[in-house]
Structures are given as C-alpha cells and as structure tokens.
C-alpha cells in the first residue's frame, strides 16, 4: 500500500499501535498526575537551581574575584561549562535537521526531546559569558548599537563577537523550529483537553492549528528548509566556539584542527546527554514502545563514530606536539608533559572516558543494552567536561614564563554556579516532560504504517490484515448500515424511554460512590461522544463493557451519530481491557 519498507529494517514503533494509541500514549503524561519520583527529582533540581541563583547573585554583587581565577588561569570553569553546555546542545539539531535531510525515520521518536534538550542546554551555556562580563548591566555593549561613547562599535574581527551572533541565531532558530513542529501536537492535546484552563493554554500555544491540507503542505516545506538551514548553522556554532581558542596564540589553543574536532566532540557529548535523558524518560513516561532498542543502538553508533573522530584528533594533537620538538608544546593538554604532570588526573579522565570506554560500543550486546548505554553515556558526559577543562586549564597553567606556572582550584562559587545550571537544566526538562508532547506524535503517525511492528508483521507474513485499499474500502462500506445518520430522528419522549432502557441493562452510575473513567481511552470515543455518553448516564468502563448488539443499536438510535461504529470498534471489548 505504498508503505513498503525492507523487512530487514527493524520496526521502530512497537506494541501493535494504532493512530489512536499513539495519541493516548503521548497525551498520558500530560493528562495524568505527576508521581512521587517526579516530585523528588523536581525538588532536588529546584534546590540546585536556587543554589546556583545565589552563587550568581554573589558573583554579580561582589565581582569575578569570588571565582578561583588567577593571573595565569584567567578562564576556567566558566568557559569550560559554557563550551560543555553548547556542545550538549548540538545533538538536538543534529537529530532533527541532519537526520531529516538523510530521511532517517528513527529520528521521529526522539527529535522532540533532543530539541528541547538543545534549547535548555543553550540557555545554560548563554548564562556563562553573561555573568563572566562582570558588569552584566553593561551587557548590551556586545550589540552593535550606537552608544554614548561616540559611535564606538563592537569588533567584528573578534571570534568572541562571532559567538554572540552564532549562539543567538542558533538559539532563536532552534526555538522556532521546535515550536513549529510542536503546533500539531499541541493541537492534539488541545482537542482532548477536558479542563477549561488546560484547553485555554493549549489553544494559545497551538496557535489555532487545524491540520488543513494546505497547512500541512507548507509545514513540511518549512520543516525541510529549516533543516537545510539548521544543518550548516549547527556546524557553524561549534566551529565559531572553537575559534575562540584557535585564533589565539596560546600554545595548545592555536590549532587548525579545532573546528572539525570541536563539532565532532559536540555531537559526541550531545548524543550522550540524549541517551542519559531518554533512557530515564522512556521508563518514567512509559514510552518504551516509541524509544526502542533500535533508537538506542543507532545513537550509540553515532557516538562510536564521533568518539572515533575525537580520538583521532587527540592522537594527531599528541603527535604534532611531540613532532614540533618545541619545549612549549610539551605542556599542552595533549602531551607527555600533561599526562605525567600535575594535571595527570584530568588528562587520564579525558582519555579513559572519551576514547577508551566508548569503544565498548563495538560489542553489539553492549550497544543494545539499556543499562550499559546509560552508564557509558554518563562517562562520556564527564569525559567531555574534562576535555574542555583540559583545553582551558592545562593549557593556561603553564606558559612561556615558568615563574608564573600555577594550578587552578575552584571556589564554592564556581562549583555552585555549575551545579546551579545542572539544576536549572533539569527543572526545565522535568517541566517539559509533564506539559509538552514529548514525542512528535504527528510525525510518528505518518510513519506508523511503514514501520509499526504490527504492519511489518502483516506484510511479511502475507497476513490477511494486509489488504489492498479496495478491500479496505469494501469492508468499511459493508460495516455501514443502510440508514443514513441524518435520517434518524427520534422524538424526545422516545429518546428518554430508550435512555432508561439502555441504563437498565448497563447499570446506573452513582457519582457519590463511583469514579468516572476517561472514556476517551476507548478507540472511537472522542470528546464529543464522551459528553453524549455522559449525558445519557454512561461514565465508566464497567458500563461500556456490558454493551452488546442490543445496547449498541439503542445507543445508535439515541445519539443519532453514525450507526455501527461502536460495534465495529468493539467498545465493550476495549472497555473490558481498560477496566482492569
């Protein structure tokens, strides 16, 4: 039926899902209540965030002197954290843009959360240069605007200014890309919402999305063009971040390999963070059917490739440093001097976490294993933090003047701000997980027929489920009864009699002792039908499960909507399952 996909490709939507199941599963975390674990995680993150706010306030109030910086090491944790967070922010755009251009269907289960992670990570990254300015109230000096100093402009030859443009373009374009993709999914939540406040909020954020054919056509074009624009953009961002170092004359920084190596490292760390977050999320939000072994394995393959690129870059730096024969190159972050010097622990943390441990992913069993993947992803997150720490602190700790050689020790403020950004990041992500559709459900529905396990099984086995469209149409036509819906006009008296008749056989609902179920969980019952059922007096799965042919017919004649629907969808059978 035009949805053919090679059988050798594993299904990426499992659990025999239908379109409606996807809707219900994606809406569930938003419509349900937060559990205890969520609250515990949220409160811990919030406390960390507030500690960070305090540390930032102290920094701004007192000055940068509260950090551990000294004469020689004038950049340390601040820029380490900045580069680390920006790097993490790379996976989201890579997944949603680059994989879209490559037509990788597995991106659809994870792109929404990866993009959310990108935006939240870039927000954390942006904080560091801002507070590093010291006088944050003069922050507008980075903008090219006429000012009271005559027309003294910013310096467009400086990579630090390029960064201002790159990061702000990246953040704003990612946000717009993300939000545009969210519109149809917000609309889905809006149309299911029963509480008026919820409905208002989701109507507002869905921008009145209606799913018209022309809008979808434009939507797809916009997604494609944005992907085309975001791909070079994401590469440019970390390239420019690497220019901050590469255009300087500090030994160890002045290196032409930096741009490609930084981009690979960013993708490497970004995917590791996606793994860390999604492996938890798929459990907590019950998304195991959408974020499957295939997704995890594919991401691990990307980690293996980018980790390999990073390792080759390390080796080439090590070789070039040694080959120059310059004594100033023997203390840069990748040198024998660094490996055996006072920062040996930072050097070896980098090598072990980034180059050695990820090699375990060559073993298929490990890269398909959720627990192993989670553990290794944590190591990579740590390793990539050390990479930036090594580049900045080890390189600065020694220089051409041996008398100024020194070490760096962070103060509680340095640590507080870093912990604070971690807290802020998780606060945002946890709130996102409870209020946003965390799976791009519209996109996932569009690939269900080609890659859902039920559809794949049917195609392979030549199962009768797989029919030609003509057969499907025929079946649907047969299911309709002769009487057209609009002709059923029952007078009120008749309806009342039928209603009581119906309730007699299903049992009445007592609001004092029983609790109403969410009947929308039954396939075929939408919000309108639920309301109609409630008006009749049907509130629970137990009532629906008692329905037989006789009750279906009665219901049809009361509601006057399209006959035979309830029977065909087997509401009773579905309700029976939901009841337990």
């Amino acid at each position: 039926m035009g949805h053919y996909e090679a059988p050798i490709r594993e299904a990426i939507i499992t659990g025999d899902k239908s379109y409606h199941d996807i809707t219900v599963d994606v809406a569930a975390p938003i419509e349900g209540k937060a559990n205890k674990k969520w609250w515990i995680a949220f409160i811990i993150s919030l406390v960390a965030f507030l500690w960070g706010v305090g540390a930032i306030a102290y920094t701004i109030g007192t000055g940068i002197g509260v950090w551990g910086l000294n004469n020689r090491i004038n950049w340390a944790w601040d820029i380490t954290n900045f580069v680390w967070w920006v790097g993490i922010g790379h996976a989201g755009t890579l997944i949603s843009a680059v994989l879209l251009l490559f037509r990788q269907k597995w991106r659809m289960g994870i792109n929404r959360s990866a993009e959310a992670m990108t935006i939240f990570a870039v927000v954390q990254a942006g904080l560091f240069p801002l507070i590093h300015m010291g006088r944050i109230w003069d922050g507008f000096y980075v903008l090219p605007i006429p000012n009271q100093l005559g027309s003294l402009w910013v310096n467009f030859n400086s990579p630090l200014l390029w960064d201002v443009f790159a990061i702000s373009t990246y953040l704003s374009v990612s946000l717009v890309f993300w939000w545009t993709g969210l519109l149809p999914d917000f609309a889905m939540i809006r149309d299911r919402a029963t509480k008026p406040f919820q409905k208002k909020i989701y109507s507002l954020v869905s921008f009145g999305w209606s799913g018209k054919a022309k809008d979808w056509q434009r939507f797809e074009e916009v997604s494609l063009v944005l992907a085309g624009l975001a791909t070079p953009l994401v590469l440019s961002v970390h390239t420019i971040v690497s220019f901050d170092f590469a255009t300087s004359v500090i030994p160890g920084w002045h290196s032409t390999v930096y741009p490609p190596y930084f981009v690979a490292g960013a993708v490497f760390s970004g995917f590791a963070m996606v793994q860390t977050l999604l492996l938890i999320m798929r459990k907590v939000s019950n998304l195991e059917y959408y974020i499957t072994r295939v997704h995890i394995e594919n991401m691990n393959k990307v980690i293996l490739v980018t980790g390999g690129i990073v390792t080759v870059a390390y080796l080439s730096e090590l070789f070039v440093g040694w080959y120059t024969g310059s004594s100033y190159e023997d203390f840069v972050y990748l040198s024998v001097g660094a490996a055996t010097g006072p920062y040996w622990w930072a050097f070896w943390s980098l090598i072990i976490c980034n180059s050695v441990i990820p090699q375990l992913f060559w073993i298929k069993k490990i890269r398909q294993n959720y627990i192993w993947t989670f553990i290794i992803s944590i190591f990579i997150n740590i390793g990539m933090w050390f990479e930036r720490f090594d580049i900045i602190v080890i390189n600065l700790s020694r220089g051409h003047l041996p008398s100024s050689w020194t070490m760096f020790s962070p103060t509680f403020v340095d640590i507080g701000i870093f912990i604070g950004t971690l807290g802020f990041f998780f606060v945002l992500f946890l709130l996102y997980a409870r209020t946003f559709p965390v799976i791009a459900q519209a996109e996932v529905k569009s690939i269900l027929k080609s890659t859902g396990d039920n559809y794949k099984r049917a195609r392979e086995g030549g199962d009768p489920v797989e029919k030609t469209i003509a057969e499907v149409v025929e079946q649907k036509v047969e299911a309709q009864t002769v009487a057209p819906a609009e002709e059923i006009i029952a007078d009120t008296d008749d309806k009342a009699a039928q209603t009581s008749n119906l309730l007699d056989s299903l049992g009445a609902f007592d609001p004092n002792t029983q609790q109403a179920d969410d009947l929308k969980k039954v396939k075929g019952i939408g919000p309108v039908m639920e309301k109609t059922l409630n008006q009749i007096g049907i509130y629970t799965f137990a009532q629906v499960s008692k329905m037989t042919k006789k009750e279906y017919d009665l219901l049809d004649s009361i509601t006057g909507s399209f006959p035979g629907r309830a029977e065909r969808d087997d509401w009773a059978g579905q309700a029976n399952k939901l009841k337990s």
Partner: protein
Amino acid sequence: MSSKVIHALYDDDDVLLKAVKEVKAAHHHIEEIYTPFPVHGLDKAMGLEPTRLGITAFMYGLTGLGFAVWFLNFIMIQDWPQNIGGKPSFSFAENMPAFVPVMFEMTVFFAAHLMVITFYMRSKIWPFREAENPDPRTTDDHFLMEVAVDGDADQLASLLKGTGAVEINVKEKH
C-alpha cells in the same frame, strides 16, 4: 448565502487518498481536508499548487546577506575604521574573511525567521487564534473531508459512503 457541506470522516489515510480521487473524478468540490498528520500525496490528489515558501526563504536569505554586508561595511570600514591587531580595516574586500561568520549567521537568521513568519501569516496561525477543525478527532485518528453540496445531498452522501467513510454529517456552511 448559506449553503450546505458534507463532512465525511475517514479513519485511514490510504482510504482517504482513494476517496479524494473518486470525489474529484465525480466533479465535486472538496472545500478542505483536515488530517492529524501530513498525508503524503494528498496535496497532489487535491490539486493544490506547490508552496512557494522555499523560494521566499531563499530571497529572505539574500536580504540577510545583503544587510550583513552593508552593516559590516558601515561599522568596520566607513564609520570608524580601527587598527585592531594590524588587521586590514580600510577596505571591505581585504577585511571580508573576518566577516564571513557574521554574514553567514545573518543569512540564516533572516531566512529562517522570515520564512516561518510568512508561513504563520499565510496559514493564519498565531497566538489567540481559534482552531477551525470541525471535529476534535481530526487531530487524533480521523481524517475529515469537507465537500460542498452542489445539488442532491443524498446522492453525494451515498457516493462518500461508497468511498469508505466511517461517518457522514451534513452541515450548514456559514
């Protein structure tokens, strides 16, 4: 003038596509189709023109690039040329390599944002706008085809039923 429309609901995208072709073949006017996800080939089947948003993005990108060139030249070369680290500051052409990153970022910035704004304006979607899908199930698992009634409504209804619709409602179009 009020006229009637028929809302035919489908629960399968392939059935919908086939139905669109049949309704078109019977020379009925499809007013609109609401779907929960992009159905590939639907725009072609309905006879919609291809969108020109991609072209606008290209033009917005050129605008952004042009703006960046003007703005960098004015700031760095015309208004206050400075000798920064001995880099050339008296000719745009010589200083241009240092401007490439910002020129690129501005191109992307203009192309992406203006294209998305154009999309929102053309499709009339923005905050506080009311949704227009006639049935809430069209964002879940149903596909709704709105067909204008021209002549006999019953005949059209039976045609639509023959295409596999799961529900048919006749509505007044305001």
